[in-house]
């Protein structure tokens, strides 16, 4: 193997992969998940949600200009970003949970790279035919038929890519308006740039880069490998049951009949005939269940042989399970030669013990702790969501200077009070204070104590607090006070504690 005198090559060409169509329980699950995830992605921006006259009526909207995030009945202000942080922590813990329980299930079913690549494979199969036709086309010269099929495929991919990039920008502006603007050339440059970039990435990653993204670009496979343990359920080949592989004299007939009658079995790209891999044993030895039909290899979207064991490239899409189950059915053997198993199953099953049910692998302290943490944060976020007020204030004491002496000897402190009216109504707020000492409150720019704040807006109001001449607060060091902001005629109120600094402090 190692006898190479030629200079080593600096690069490896991408091995083209032509996965075969497969059907089965996991394929069906993947179709359902694809429909749900793509449906959510494309439809969400078009859902309307009536919030009254002052606010947008788009159910999910990230308003970067106005610094608001709308999600159905929830409106998140920038100062409430901890909700997003909480959701991100939940997403992280959720991935820990799913990875420790089910391995790379995110990669296999719901990662956008997987979903869109799957969609692109579907288009490819629909236009160019299944594996064998595509292999032929790949080897064929670039004649008219090849150009026609390739260009058709690329156009359909491009349309999907444009729709993907296009749908993204609708989350950031009113979707119907933006759609019209995009087509009439009225939309902002950043909208076109975003659509162009996402179209390009979708087209390239889904159509051409495919498994290269997972193997070389994505850090998640490497992180996940470190988060799995011997109880993690993952897609694996029961080599203790399958090996030594081969058709064998006795079952040659049924094996060849199964291979002949199955779309899935057949030669691999490198031209290995079924039943002739290097691991095949002499025919007089007792054989395992694997008839070496290559069905599992032929359907693999990342182009690996699951029988080689755990591999970094494997995204656990489970299509090889479906393929093998079909063959096992035809040969008349028990399904599950390739299956969701845990590493501990090998020892157990080799010893001939009863199979351990999946739920016993999943329910273990580690996953239960993850679940507990995940739900605790979830509950905390929901509670925080329901108890949050539609009025929020911050009080910033102006400390340059700390206080001002007025001509009659009274002492004044200044506070910048920011009032956030998170209701959908224009509101008037009354500012007052409570303190153990006598203090007078006044506002900049108005003789009253009322501040008008428009709906869904923030108002900065300068507030003056004055202590009478020679009063304890004026002559003392620090006096605690609480500034109250109350909505006139309504029930909303908020307060914040701060300090009054008198002459004694300097």
């Amino acid at each position: 193997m190692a006898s190479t005198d030629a200079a080593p090559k600096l690069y490896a060409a991408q091995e083209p992969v032509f996965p075969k169509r497969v059907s089965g329980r996991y394929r069906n699950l993947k179709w359902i998940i694809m429909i749900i995830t793509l449906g959510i992605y494309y439809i969400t921006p078009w859902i309307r949600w009536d919030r009254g006259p002052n606010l947008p009526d788009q159910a999910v909207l990230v308003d970067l200009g106005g610094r608001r995030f709308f999600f159905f009945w929830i409106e998140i202000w920038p100062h409430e970003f901890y909700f997003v942080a909480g959701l991100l922590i939940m997403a992280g813990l959720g991935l820990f949970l799913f990875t420790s329980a089910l391995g790379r299930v995110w990669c296999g079913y719901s990662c956008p790279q997987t979903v869109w690549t799957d969609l692109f494979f579907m288009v490819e199969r629909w236009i160019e035919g299944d594996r064998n036709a595509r292999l032929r086309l790949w080897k064929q010269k670039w004649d008219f038929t090849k150009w026609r099929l390739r260009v058709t495929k690329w156009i359909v991919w491009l349309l999907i890519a444009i729709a993907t990039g296009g749908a993204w920008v609708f989350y950031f502006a009113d979707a119907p308006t933006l759609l019209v603007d995009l087509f009439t050339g009225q939309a902002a440059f950043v909208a076109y740039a975003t659509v162009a970039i996402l179209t390009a990435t979708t087209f390239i990653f889904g159509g051409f880069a495919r498994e290269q993204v997972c193997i070389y670009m994505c850090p998640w496979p490497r992180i996940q490998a470190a988060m799995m343990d011997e109880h993690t359920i993952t897609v694996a080949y029961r080599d203790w049951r399958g090996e030594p592989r081969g058709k064998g004299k006795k079952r040659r007939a049924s094996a060849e009949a199964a291979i002949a009658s199955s779309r899935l079995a057949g030669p691999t790209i490198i031209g290995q005939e079924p039943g002739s891999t290097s691991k095949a044993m002499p025919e007089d030895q007792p054989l395992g269940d694997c008839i070496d039909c290559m069905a599992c290899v032929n359907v693999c979207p990342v182009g690996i042989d699951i029988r080689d064991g755990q591999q970094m490239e494997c995204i656990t899409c489970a299509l090889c399970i479906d393929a093998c189950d079909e063959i096992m059915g035809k040969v008349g053997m028990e399904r599950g030669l390739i299956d969701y198993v845990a590493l501990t199953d090998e020892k157990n099953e080799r010893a001939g013990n009863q199979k351990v049910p999946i739920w016993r692998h999943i329910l273990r302290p580690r996953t239960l702790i993850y679940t507990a943490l995940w739900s605790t944060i979830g509950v905390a976020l929901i509670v925080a969501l329901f108890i949050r007020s539609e009025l929020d204030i911050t009080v910033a004491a102006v400390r340059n200077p700390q206080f001002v002496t007025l001509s009659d000897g009274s002492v004044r402190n200044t506070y910048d009070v920011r009032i956030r009216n998170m209701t959908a109504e224009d509101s008037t707020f009354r500012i007052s204070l409570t303190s153990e000492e006598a203090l007078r409150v006044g506002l900049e720019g108005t003789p009253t104590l009322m501040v008008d704040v428009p709906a869904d807006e923030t108002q900065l109001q300068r507030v003056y607090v004055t202590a009478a001449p020679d009063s304890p607060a004026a002559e003392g060091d620090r006096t605690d006070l609480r500034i109250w902001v109350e909505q006139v005629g309504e029930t909303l109120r908020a307060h914040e504690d701060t300090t009054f600094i008198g002459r004694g402090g300097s």
Partner: protein
Amino acid sequence: MTDHEHSNLHPDDPDTTGHSWDGIQEFNNPLPRWWLWCFYATIVWGIVYTVMYPAWPMISGATPGVLGYSTRAEVAEEIDRFDALNADLRTQITEVELASVNREDTPELYNYSIQAGASTFATWCSQCHGRGAAGVQASGYPNLLDDDWLWGGTVEEIHDTIAHGIRNEDDPDARWSEMTAFDDILTDEEIGQVVNYVLDISDQEADATLASAGETVFLDNCAACHGDEGMGDRVLGAPNLTDRIWLYGGTPEAIEETVRHSRFGVMPSWSGRLSEADIRATAIYVHGLGGGE
């Protein structure tokens, strides 16, 4: 070269690079072609970038780059752009009655004035009056936050003060007044008496005998400017001596220093340096700091 005799290679292992050090060999796990091309593209990009944009540090400055890009020019462009955006507001602010600018009736103009005024104040005024406009206590730089104004605290009066300054030689319209230095005019005894009188009318501890004698001295020498009651006179910029605010300090020593040697605070005229729009914005800003009348 590779020592095949002692090779521990497994049949499935990739090729080696042919390098061997004490029997340790190196697998050849080549990079994917697209990765390598991206890497080459970044190198090309880097070279092109350093040619197009300022990049290599030289002894005086950096290579300018063939595109002529400069962050300084970009800032100048940005400033021009914002000036153009605010041109209407800047024209408007020079035309309106200053007193009519407020948050309720002219919110846009008011907001612009406060922002522009704050920035002008920070650049040109804060050196003397302080970043928070509190002045420098007892050193002659007035506190602009309180309710005591030497030359008037309405927005128009503040505007005049900023535009023309105080006691400067450059602007004929500058407010002018000068307190007499009484060191050579009054006797030490009379100075002691008048200092105690001033302490007394400003509610501070004073020697009652000296203070009552000081009243005559005050009425004869000081009342012309500071008024019979010592309430000051804004036309002359004469401070109110009965309140609790002292530009140069209210201690007996500071008052005596003022009486003997006088004070002479100067503020420059800004009409030559700042635009009328900026001066008006600054007047509105200062008026809104808490002391405006």
